[in-house]
């Protein structure tokens, strides 16, 4: 008999209970993975790789670059999607194989990083102004290309917001691969990342090339964004990158603990998010977007964490002028 989805019509606690009880079955492999479980695993794998990168980018203060990269990667993918769509013609645009996605994304990621480097270094433009210029320019090129080439294959919200409710087990494999790559990279070159983030000058002295690791980080970021852009959409990836990292930052001050607890927070938030969407669906017949719900849970938990910490300063001791600046706000 067709196994009805065990999570149908279940409230929040029921969901958690069934999920915990089904984990041993899933591991032992004698029951088929259902859409909700697929969502939880996919979201948590994505949370792991995103928050790992988020911690390093937050400490390097280049999170805005992640925002611009995710936008331009979207443009690369949309253009690749379109070229295949228009050339294939007819009314069945098959979804692109992952390979073409990667190539398109890597090209656009490289273009963005190179262009913003060129703008800041040789044209002497402010850092954030150059990032802003580059990604809006490429994004508007993307939109013009889309509307000109195919009048009706509109970008739609799906490309920008992703759709966590339309997952296929193939995504799980792909995300497993990305998470494995990210985790192994962070374990292997942990001290290089620590050094290049904390004190690039000293790293140069120790003959660790900072540019190599910053480009490696960009590479990792691009692969993660490709993997998760279909799931959570371009702009939500950013909150998975920065959210857990900021949340962990409030509580933990060692680099290792940050790298450990940020993904943990990400996983907990994804589970709560999926459980809540299932709850709203079965209780109030309100099909809400799971991505939006996870981010709302993230925002609420960050807000709660702030209240709990009751305005204690975070870890770095303010240098003298920063102290004057914050005194100004008293």
């Amino acid at each position: 008999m067709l196994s009805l989805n065990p999570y149908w019509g279940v409230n929040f606690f029921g969901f958690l209970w069934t999920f915990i009880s089904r984990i041993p079955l899933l591991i032992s492999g004698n029951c088929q993975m259902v859409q909700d479980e697929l969502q939880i695993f996919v979201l948590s794998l994505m949370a792991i790789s995103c928050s790992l990168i988020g911690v390093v980018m937050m400490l390097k203060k280049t999170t805005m670059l992640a925002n611009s990269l995710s936008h331009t990667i979207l443009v690369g993918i949309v253009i690749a999607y379109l070229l295949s769509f228009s050339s294939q013609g007819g009314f069945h645009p098959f979804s692109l194989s992952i390979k073409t996605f990667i190539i398109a994304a890597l090209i656009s990621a490289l273009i963005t990083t190179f262009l913003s480097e060129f703008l800041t270094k040789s044209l002497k433009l402010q850092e954030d102004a150059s990032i802003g210029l580059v990604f809006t320019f490429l994004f508007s090129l993307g939109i013009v290309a889309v509307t000109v080439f195919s009048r009706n294959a509109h970008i739609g919200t799906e490309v920008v917001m992703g759709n966590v409710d339309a997952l296929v087990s193939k995504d799980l494999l792909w995300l497993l691969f990305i998470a494995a790559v990210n985790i192994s990279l962070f374990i292997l070159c942990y001290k290089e990342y620590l050094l290049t983030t904390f004190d690039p000058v000293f790293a140069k002295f120790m003959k660790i090339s900072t540019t190599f690791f910053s480009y490696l980080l960009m590479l990792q970021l691009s692969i993660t964004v490709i993997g998760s852009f279909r799931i959570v959409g371009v702009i939500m990836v950013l909150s998975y990158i920065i959210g857990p990292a900021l949340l962990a930052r409030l509580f933990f001050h060692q680099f290792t603990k940050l790298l450990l607890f940020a993904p943990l927070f990400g996983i907990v938030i994804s589970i709560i998010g999926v459980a809540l969407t299932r709850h709203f669906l079965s209780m109030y017949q309100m099909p809400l977007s799971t991505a939006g719900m996870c981010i709302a849970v993230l925002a609420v938990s960050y807000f709660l964490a702030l209240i709990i910490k009751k305005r204690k300063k975070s870890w770095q001791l303010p240098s003298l002028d920063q102290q004057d600046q914050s005194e100004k706000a008293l």
Partner: protein
Amino acid sequence: MNCILEAQDLCIHYNKTPILWDVSFKVPKHHMTAIVGPNGAGKSTLLKASLQIIKPFSGSISFGRCNSDNHIAYVPQKESIDWDFPVSALDVVLMGRYGRLKYFQRVKAADKEAAMQALQQVGMASYSSRQINQLSGGQQQRLFIARALVQKPDVLLLDEPFSGIDMATEKLLIELFIKLKNEGKSIFIVHHDLTTLDQYFDWVILINTRLIGCGPVKEVMTQENIQKAYGNNLSLFEEAHHLSKKQAEGYIS
């Protein structure tokens, strides 16, 4: 003796860490006063508190009678400014007069005249139309002083005017300050170089989070006071201060 600046058990905290701790002193008029102390002793904070930029945690500090704004002129640190800002030297000096301008009011010819005069005083008249990012460190400092002079102040407060400028400009600035002192103005300078203290200044405030001494240079700058301010026998106080900071930030449960 009528005093110009008075502080009564002034206390300033930044997020539970004390920066100035019950400081009380009086400084007489028409004197050149140096505010001296090691790094992080709260020198600039004292200056900013006197300007009411920072609200003290407890106690008070004020300039007494002439407390209204246009009589007090402040010269901030050079490093806190983005010198790539698109304004000319004359514009910067004119800013001194913006306090009196009402909205929609244009800068009057008299203000421009006063600005050129102030530039003359600091010897920067020929640079008036020059762009500020083309000025050297010394010239930028003199520009800030001209901006303060344009306000026709009775009290002049300068935050580390001598840091990062060449010898020639330092000599010129000192001559200017002495001339201003003789004209009846009181000058307060945050200073860090102990060697030039007795030649330039006649009054000094020596602080290191706590007030160590306030009076004529000879009286205050005794070996014992200096040792107290810069030496290490403050270590006990330092230790306690450090512990309280750690506690405040929640490292030690």
